[in-house]
């Protein structure tokens, strides 16, 4: 049973009088524990695809099954609940709340969770998540006091707080230098290997896509290729070769 299954996914935007067809019938299955890299030029529809998979948007037509649930017809509140519990996001621009400490940023998903979590418990779990990404000593720093790599790690800690089964990363290395990019990829590969979290990475760079165990190429709103990556780059090994930052 695949973790995620889409069939004939179509998304059409109305921009003025012109109908823009962002997705033109996408069919795909992703198994639990895969590291899928979605690669394609800008405008290929890969971001739209990720938004629908990430329950931020709904398809115009087609089916989307997430863990045996047809989520393409769910209402806004139900989608919010899925985003909160089953999905984590990492963005290119980090998307941390400004003027808010790292630990408060990380505990954000707990505020919207189903269970009432006390302030002390929230702080405890957020601190633990920060420690897991190696930022325990930066808990009270605000985003503008952190480097890009650190900010992205805070974002990853936030994404993982509710133990999601799937993590969506939209150009996560776009604003990072090469070493921190590799570090972030290392975190993703570890999450996949150690915790079995499914990773969906969106990128326009072929080299970044090479970290995935499977590479799906997008063009003009359709999948043009879908192959297992037999030459997967391993971030841990590369880090050892790189000079220390």
């Amino acid at each position, binding site marked *: 049973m695949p973790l995620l299954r889409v069939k004939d996914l179509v998304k059409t935007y109305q921009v003025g009088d012109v109908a823009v067809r962002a997705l033109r019938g996408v069919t795909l299955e992703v198994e639990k524990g895969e590291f899928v890299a979605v690669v394609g030029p800008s405008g290929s529809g890969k971001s739209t695809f990720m938004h629908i998979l990430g329950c*931020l948007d709904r398809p115009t037509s087609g089916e989307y099954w997430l863990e045996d649930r047809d989520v393409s017809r769910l209402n*806004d509140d139900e989608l*919010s609940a899925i985003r909160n519990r089953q999905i984590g*996001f990492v963005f290119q621009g980090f998307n941390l709340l400004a003027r*808010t400490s790292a630990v408060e940023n990380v505990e*954000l*998903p707990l505020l919207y*969770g189903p269970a009432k979590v006390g302030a002390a418990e929230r702080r405890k779990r957020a601190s633990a998540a920060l420690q897991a990404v190696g930022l325990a000593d930066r808990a009270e720093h605000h985003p503008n006091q952190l480097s890009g790599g650190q900010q992205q790690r805070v974002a990853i800690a936030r994404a993982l707080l509710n133990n999601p089964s799937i993590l969506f990363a939209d150009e996560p290395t776009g604003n990072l230098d090469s070493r921190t990019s590799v570090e972030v990829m290392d975190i993703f590969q570890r999450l996949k290997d150690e915790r079995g979290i499914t990773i969906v990475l969106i990128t326009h760079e072929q080299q970044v896509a090479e970290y995935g165990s499977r590479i799906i190429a997008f063009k003009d709103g359709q999948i043009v290729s879908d192959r297992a990556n037999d030459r997967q780059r391993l971030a841990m090994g590369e880090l050892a070769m790189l000079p220390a930052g």
Partner: protein
Amino acid sequence: MTVGSSLTIALRALSRNKLQTALTTIGMTIGVATVLTMIALGTGAEAAIEQQVRAAGMNLIVVTAGNYKTKTEDDGGGVVDHQARLIPDPQSLIPDVLLAGFHPEDDPMEKHDHPTARQRLGDTEAGLGAAATLTPADADAIRQLRGVQFVSEGIHENVHATAGDKRWFTRLHGGDVELPSIRRSWTFTAGRFFSAREQSRLAPVAVLGAFAAEKLFGTANPVGQQILLWKQPFQVVGVVGSGSWMVAPSAGDDQFDAVYVPFTTIHKLLNLSKLNDITITAASTGEVTRVSKDVTELLRTRHGIGMKDPDDFTVGTQARQSLARGGLRPEVARAVVGNVSGLEKVTLEQLGRTLDRATKTMTALLGSIAAVSLIVGGIGIMNIMLLSVTERTREIGIRRAVGARAGDVLRQFLAEAIALSVIGGVAGIALGAVASGIIAQMLKWSTSVSPASIALSFAVAAAVGVFFGYYPARQASRLDPIDSLRYE
């Protein structure tokens, strides 16, 4: 998401922008302060009316010695002496008996510079209050009656008061320590009233009315100084002035152009035993009629007055006075007062009406200021919240991405708006309390900031927050998650 976490998020968001928060709340602060001041002034005015009414003596009963017998009741006219039969044969008078119940004042043979009771009662010229029928024992008996609040014995004379080289002809009042409780409009501008201890020791102490004090001492503080009354030295212990803006001390006003000493001291000094009058206050204005009836019954019994005979004293109330002034004959007036239980209230309302009108004008004025500043404050909050929604579009996107529902966003922004207005409201309550205090000082009104008025101001603030915060909050909740995440 719980209300608690909505509030946590809202307060965090507000604390990130303290200056903006502070500026936004000013409108609310002024609005709520005005509301609170308005309520305080309203209730204060009510209290002031009540106070003025009491100061004017609406709950006052004055029992005056003597009574004019009307022609319908007595052909002879003048005052009837019912106690005459109590006066013993002068031959049988021995000092012990004299001390036990009689006084030389009652004795026609005694050499005394005051007219005897018999002389006075037969003398219509002596007038009310001059008859010697009321005793301190009567006053003590009245103190035991139900519904009686305060009682003061009264002796009134005219006197030359001397301080150094200054002399002033003024009224001398012998009173009881309870007198200041009866004269509610009094304030002590210096010192105090004489004490119960001084009264029982017949101490030569005096309290000056403000006007008399000014005549005798000018601007100097008379407390601790000596004055001479009948060439006897009296120590001044206090100066009493008017606490009501309606009454200013003036020459010959009987209250502040006056000297007060313990009635016991006067009794001793002038060798007297009787009282000119007894002043009583009823605990409630509604009971004045009943209390005055009870006093009448009591005194008739004590004085041994037969069923058909008229009183040897006169019980006066404010209400009866106003009737009598209208030309009613006393017995008719008494019948009317006795049968109209709400009469005191009628006059009370008349007195209050003038003040009430002034209060209403002020309340209307403050009310419109409050309404305008609350609306302006509310629009200020709405404006800042709309701006905030635009400014924080990305934040909304982030929150939506980690699982916030549209309703959560709505609640957050609504909570922020309410928090803004409530913070402003709390500051307004503080400001309003201070403003009421200042106005109270200026107008000498007892403006009262009650818990109820604070609760109301608080509720008004929160309501303004909900009303003006709802639209921006709804805008925020309707933003598309993807668009807001992309918003730069």
